[in-house]
């Protein structure tokens, strides 16, 4: 316990540094803005702005604080377009449209926005407190992990990814494999042998992480926007004067608490982020509300609005836990943050809490501040963000391209990278079109070398005997969890179908 307070003190010393404090505010503001724009979610926002943040030459903790602010700010802002436009910023905000938009249609847009802001705040705060308690604990367990345990952990991560993300298990797995394959390009660090470089000098160091991220997310998103292009202005509902009342909060207090816990734990599961969390929380609340809930959910029930919002913000925090403590990101966006850390030569993982406490704890402390800042920014300024929703697509689209180009060009000033991101954008657009989700690709890409190196290290220890992978209890438990996470949803849906047939 003493360690935690000591750590928090270190963290707040970093986060309250005036420059970092400004970055938290800036990140939260920019994040809310990005989240509020229809079609641009947290993952695309972080992807497009990452190279620019990198190019600014900040210290690692400052850059990470800025990016994390953008990340949870965007998670926070996603609800604005969901409620006012019925267009979710990304998949984690889909559930918010179900009850949020009907409320706005009833003329309660202000109430819907403020309730969801409070729900998000509570969800985010609960998750950051849980993170403070569990993070160091998990890290202290993870320090003892052997390479064999890490291999098992990766298998578990990819299993839960395949089972819980995207429509098709096979496609999610294949997406992760594409990422893993892309990660093998370049010189093998153990032997110095070039792999898949085809003699091209640019490929010797591997494909730059930033290029993959901006290409697959930013540019693919841009092509998606061009494809879905909506003519003229979308119709935004006005923000009225209605506001959240004490009675509302009392009514949804248990909903928010339950959803925050669900969100946090789903967020912690490697590979599954806010979108799964908000869907599960919404479903749970609807089931708890029973027959009466079946009628009101989907027509503007405050519980149906509070649940997914509390859950997706809690999940955003939860997803940070495995990233900081194990070096395994809990979602696509945290995979990008992990890549960002690696670019700053910071190896995330159990040792980070002891070796680079200013980064690990600074980030956690900045999330406490960010949460409060978001609530303060969001309650009075929501009208301004709502007005931004009306930025027409025909200006937003070229703006994304310009930002992406600026970001990529400033890394090394190589114009060939600009072609590469465009090509990767086309590839990413095709993947999306064929219902592959892109988050697994980036997860595979980021985790590729960690996975491979641990496997090789484990087998070096055992002298080539593969049984080392299953010989200790931790690994066996993780493999068992991997099997459960794959087969439990299948079994549950079978049972539900049988129950429905009876």
């Amino acid at each position, binding site marked *: 316990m003493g360690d935690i307070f000591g750590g928090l003190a270190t963290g707040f010393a970093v986060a309250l540094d005036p420059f970092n404090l400004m970055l938290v505010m800036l990140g939260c503001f920019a994040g809310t803005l990005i989240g509020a724009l229809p079609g641009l979610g947290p993952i695309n926002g972080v992807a497009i702005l990452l190279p620019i943040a990198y190019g600014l030459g900040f210290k690692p903790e400052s850059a990470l604080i800025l990016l994390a602010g953008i990340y949870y700010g965007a998670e926070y802002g996603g609800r604005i377009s969901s409620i006012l436009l019925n267009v979710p910023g990304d998949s984690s905000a889909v559930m918010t449209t179900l009850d949020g938009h009907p409320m706005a249609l009833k003329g309660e847009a202000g109430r819907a926005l403020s309730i969801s802001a409070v729900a998000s705040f509570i969800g985010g705060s609960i998750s950051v407190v849980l993170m403070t308690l569990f993070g160091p604990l998990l890290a202290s367990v993870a320090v003892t992990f052997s390479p064999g345990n890490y291999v098992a952990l990766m298998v578990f991560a990819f299993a839960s990814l395949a089972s819980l993300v995207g429509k098709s298990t096979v496609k999610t797995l*294949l997406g992760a494999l594409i990422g893993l394959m892309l990660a093998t390009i370049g010189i093998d660090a153990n032997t110095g042998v070039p792999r898949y470089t085809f003699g091209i000098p640019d490929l010797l160091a591997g494909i730059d992480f930033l290029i993959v991220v901006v290409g697959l997310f930013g540019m693919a998103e841009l092509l998606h926007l061009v494809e879905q292009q909506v003519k003229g202005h979308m119709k935004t509902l006005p923000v009225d004067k209605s506001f959240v009342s004490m009675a509302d909060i009392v009514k949804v207090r248990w909903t928010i608490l339950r959803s925050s816990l669900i969100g946090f734990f789903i967020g912690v599961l490697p590979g599954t982020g806010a979108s799964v969390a908000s869907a599960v929380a919404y479903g749970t609340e609807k089931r708890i509300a029973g027959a009466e809930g079946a009628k009101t959910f989907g027509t503007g029930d405050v519980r149906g609005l509070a649940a997914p919002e509390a859950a997706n913000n809690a999940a955003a925090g939860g997803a940070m836990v495995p990233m900081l403590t194990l070096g395994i990101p809990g979602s696509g966006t945290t995979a990008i943050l992990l890549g960002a850390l690696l670019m700053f030569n910071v190896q995330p993982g159990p040792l980070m809490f002891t070796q680079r406490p200013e980064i690990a704890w600074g980030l956690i402390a900045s999330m406490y501040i960010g949460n409060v800042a978001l609530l303060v920014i969001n309650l009075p300024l929501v009208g301004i963000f709502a007005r931004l929703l009306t930025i027409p697509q025909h200006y937003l689209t070229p703006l994304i*391209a*310009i930002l992406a180009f600026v970001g990529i060009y400033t890394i090394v000033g190589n114009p060939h990278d600009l072609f590469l991101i465009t090509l990767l954008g086309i590839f990413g657009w095709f993947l999306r079109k064929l219902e592959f989700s892109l988050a697994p690709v980036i997860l595979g890409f980021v985790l590729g070398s960690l996975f491979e190196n641990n496997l090789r290290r484990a087998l070096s220890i055992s002298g080539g005997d593969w049984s080392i992978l299953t010989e200790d209890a931790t690994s066996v438990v993780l493999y068992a969890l991997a099997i459960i996470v794959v087969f439990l949803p299948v079994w549950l849906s079978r049972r539900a179908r049988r129950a429905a047939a009876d």
Partner: protein
Amino acid sequence: MADRIFAGFLLLVTLAYGYIALTVIKAPFQYDPLGPESWPRILTLVAIPCILLILWKPDAEPFAVAKRTWFRLVLMVFLLFAYAELYEPLGFILSTVIFGTIVALSLGAPRLGAVGFGLGAGVFGYLLCVTLMDLNLPDGEIVEAAFDLIEGGSD
């Protein structure tokens, strides 16, 4: 159908990937049981069944993109390539003004708005990135040459 074509393409890439892992990649000497070629081989072994499963049971919705949408997409990709090609020769300001204006126009912005957007993005973008944030953006070979010419002329 689109699913099958894409899976077929992935299969070819994966087979080539596996072939290289089996034949080309070799460490001159190594002490570890797993060399640089083992991991790609494992990936190939896992990927091929996944691809075959998609080939056998494709599940994507039909690839419905209207002709006009295709046109818009191809135009956008072409503009992006042109932007990338002209980024250094014309410099950030000029290329962004042109790119921003044309894209905004092609996506249906009003004429004056598109020009205003292009000019704003180019000029303010440059000032913001270069002066304020100290990022490295191309001045443009043509612009530099023009400046040289003017300075040269004034001597």
